[in-house]
């Protein structure tokens, strides 16, 4: 057939790019400043750190989830951009070291880790089989071993497919993904319980695992969109990743905006409606002391704004619109995690919403390392999974009015 699409772009990220070094530099400065922050205010450091850590880890986890779904459904829409989430997943095993500060700061972060507090608290005593420091550490090791292994394995398989052109590797990808999906579902849910829900150890919600998944996934699409436009900005893949592929990312962001709203609102409504004190207290703490502004912001900027803007089909592929929406979603994603985490810190002194410079340094520190690792791996191989059986169909996609 004469229709074979040809790729005219250079497919590797410029090897001489200093971007990873710059990002690592930013990360190092951020971490050094954060360490200073630790000596200034222990509590603030650990809580700020947890917010940023959850922010970036959630994006990496959503990446691996997306890659697994892509394999298992034999999708073709995202083959061109699949290398980006694969690369995020490839580095989780290194990223695992950043759980260590959370473990070290357990006493500052988690009320349940104080034995004397548990001893006098009937409810905490009853959950101590789950909420205790030893089991907490064991769980973190299990999570990161699983995530690191699967992320690395899928990245390696994709590179092998690219280098050897062996289509049989797609079978391997599916064989890894299928059992890993339920394991990821459970581990992400329990990571949400561990890192975020147990900050208020009396509070509980069966939806919380799904909620953590939903916020991470919505922000993941925003990262994807910004990443593709960043590559275009650098003059990379401009003729390869086109309008139909960007449209798909926009549509995903739209879909997960609705999914997020559905999950978050269902959780809120059911707790609000039954009005049981042990459940409503969590929202009560987050609707006062300045935190209510973030809560209203979630409604507007995390749901209403992206929903209304992206409802129109044409806007789902417009660069300026998508970049604006994606940025807003990422900002509000940070604030949502902040809104989940910080009221737990201020539960005793109750001085409400109080941003600290350590919030910024931990974010820059972890963000610099996270994206430094990304670009460091990204430039090693092709930016798209070459030789993938679905690549041709993905390149052929056209956008219909």
């Amino acid at each position, binding site marked *: *057939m*004469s*229709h074979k699409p040809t790729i005219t772009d250079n497919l590797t990220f410029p090897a001489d790019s200093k971007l990873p070094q710059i990002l690592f530099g930013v990360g190092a400065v951020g971490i050094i400043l954060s360490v200073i922050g630790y000596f200034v205010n222990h509590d603030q450091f650990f809580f700020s750190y947890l917010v940023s850590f959850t922010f970036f880890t959630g994006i990496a986890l959503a990446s691996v989830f997306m890659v697994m779904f892509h394999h298992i459904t*034999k999708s073709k*829409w995202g083959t061109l951009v699949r290398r980006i989430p694969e690369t995020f997943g490839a580095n989780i095993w290194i990223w695992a070291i950043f759980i260590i500060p959370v473990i070290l700061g357990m006493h500052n972060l988690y009320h349940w880790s104080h034995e004397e507090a548990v001893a006098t608290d*009937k*409810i905490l005593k*009853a*959950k101590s089989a*789950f909420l205790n420091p030893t089991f907490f550490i064991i769980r973190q090791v299990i999570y990161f071993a699983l995530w690191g292994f699967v992320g690395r394995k899928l990245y390696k398989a994709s*590179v*092998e497919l690219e*280098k*050897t*052109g*062996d*289509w*049989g*590797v*797609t*079978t*391997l990808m599916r*064989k890894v993904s*299928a059992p890993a999906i*339920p394991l990821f*579902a*459970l581990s992400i*849910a329990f990571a949400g*319980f561990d890192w975020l829900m147990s900050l208020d150890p*009396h509070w*509980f*919600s*069966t*939806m*919380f*695992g*799904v909620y953590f998944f939903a916020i991470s996934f919505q922000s993941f699409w925003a990262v994807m969109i910004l990443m593709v436009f960043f590559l275009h900005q650098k003059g990379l893949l401009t003729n390869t990743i086109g309008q139909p592929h960007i449209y798909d990312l926009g549509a995903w962001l739209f879909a997960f905006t*609705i999914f997020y709203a*559905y*999950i978050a609102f*269902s*959780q809120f*409504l*059911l*707790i609000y*409606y*039954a009005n*049981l004190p*042990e459940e409503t207290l969590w929202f009560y703490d987050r609707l006062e002391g300045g935190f209510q502004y973030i809560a209203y912001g979630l409604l507007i900027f995390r749901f209403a704004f992206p929903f209304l803007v992206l409802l129109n089909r044409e806007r789902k592929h417009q660069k300026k619109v998508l970049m604006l929406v994606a940025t807003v979603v990422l900002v509000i994603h940070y604030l949502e995690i902040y809104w989940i985490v910080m009221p737990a810190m201020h539960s005793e002194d109750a001085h409400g919403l109080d941003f600290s410079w350590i919030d910024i340094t931990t974010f820059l520190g972890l963000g610099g390392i996270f994206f430094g690792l990304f670009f460091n791996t990204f430039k090693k191989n092709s930016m798209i999974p070459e*030789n993938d*059986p679905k690549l041709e169909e993905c390149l052929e996609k056209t956008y219909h009015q």
Partner: protein
Amino acid sequence: MSKYEYIPEPALVKGNHDFASLTKLVTDVNLRPTPKPWYAAMLLANAFLGVFLIAVGYLIWEGTGVWGLMNPVGWGWAIINFVWWVGIGHAGTLISAILFLFRQDWRTAINRFAEAMTIFAVICALMFPGIHVGRIWVIYWVFPIPNQMGMWPNFNSPLLWDVFAVSTYFTVSLLFWYVGLIPDLATLRDKATDKIRKFSYGLFALGWTGSNRAWWNYEKAYMILAGLATPLVLSVHTIVSFDFAVSMIPGWHTTIFPPYFVAGAIFSGFAMVLTLMIVARKIYGMEDIMTNDHMEKMNIIIMVTGSMVGFAYMMEFFIAWYSGVEYEKAIFILRATGPYAWAYWIMMTCNVLSPQFFWFKKLRTSVGFTFFISIVVNIGMWFERFVITVTSLANDYLPSSWDYYSPTIWDVLTYVGTFGIFFTLFLAFLRFLPMVAIAEIKAVLPQADPHNYDEETQEFHPHVVEVPQPKAETV
């Protein structure tokens, strides 16, 4: 050589079909004389329908006391059956709307069929809220109709939201189904030889000509309806879950209910589509269209949604323990070990265990096994609603008021009777309407892809995927 075997995409339509042979295969069912076994089946379905009418007649005559409802179990089989049928009614619109938005071409083989099932299942479901009030002559009070008494339904109640959600879902599903039918009705109109068929198919084909302009409008309308139907698929069972979850009853009030109910609904709906599909394709010889590959894909969806339901059960159990709330803990232990433990373990076996067999390719491609599991799944989903509704009510906060709930013969007959409604409608559908979306299935044939034509000679060459020889490992 590769360590692993590459599995190419299977063709969506098996056999050596072209456009004409597909049209003939599907429309012949509607145009040929009625086969005798169809009358026999219809008679049987009508007998069950008669049972339903008698059961409902007696209910209206005597009042809701004929059911097994008692104190403290004020909700019994009626709500269980309602939720069960509504759940089944999720697959059709999911297949036709959500899978359409996801560009899943395999949906074309089963979408018409599944949508019909959806509509009939929702009709069966709607029977129960329709008949469950003691004074049936004022059933219109469920709607917010202005009246001289200044009396309104309770807008704070999810039961009212249910009225809106289910009736909207029914309306949109029906419209969506009808819009999809229009081109095929025109095909039937053009194929029909007798006056009655020509007129009646022609009437509902709305003067369809198949022109470019008609298709353009049609595709726009179809897209918009798919977009509208998608949130409805999710909202209906979400609201149904609210019926339980907004309360304070232990075992009902849990935040994961909305997505968990939706997953369960898709689970049972796909099972029902499979049950019907496996029988219908055999009788009508549609194995080339509704292939074993379709069955395998649906089995995977059953496995995924079944596991999601299992995930939700685990979360409920874990959080019941984690919450430290005595009543939550007690109800979950009572479910597994109390007076209804038999129902609980049926539910667990059918819903969580049975779909896990589909991890094995051999089992998910086996027709007999799939048929068996598809029925098991729907038994399990009925028991899920039974466990949720009855156990939480029978063992409430006050142990002194605990009691054991049993249905009466009238509960059973009403439920069995709904199968009469369902199959009467379904058999009529199979006889008079095309059970496969003819126009849509043609679009997924290789002949419909312009890439498969040589531009100069206008000759058709089916697309052949060449699996490349792997290079030596260079990583």
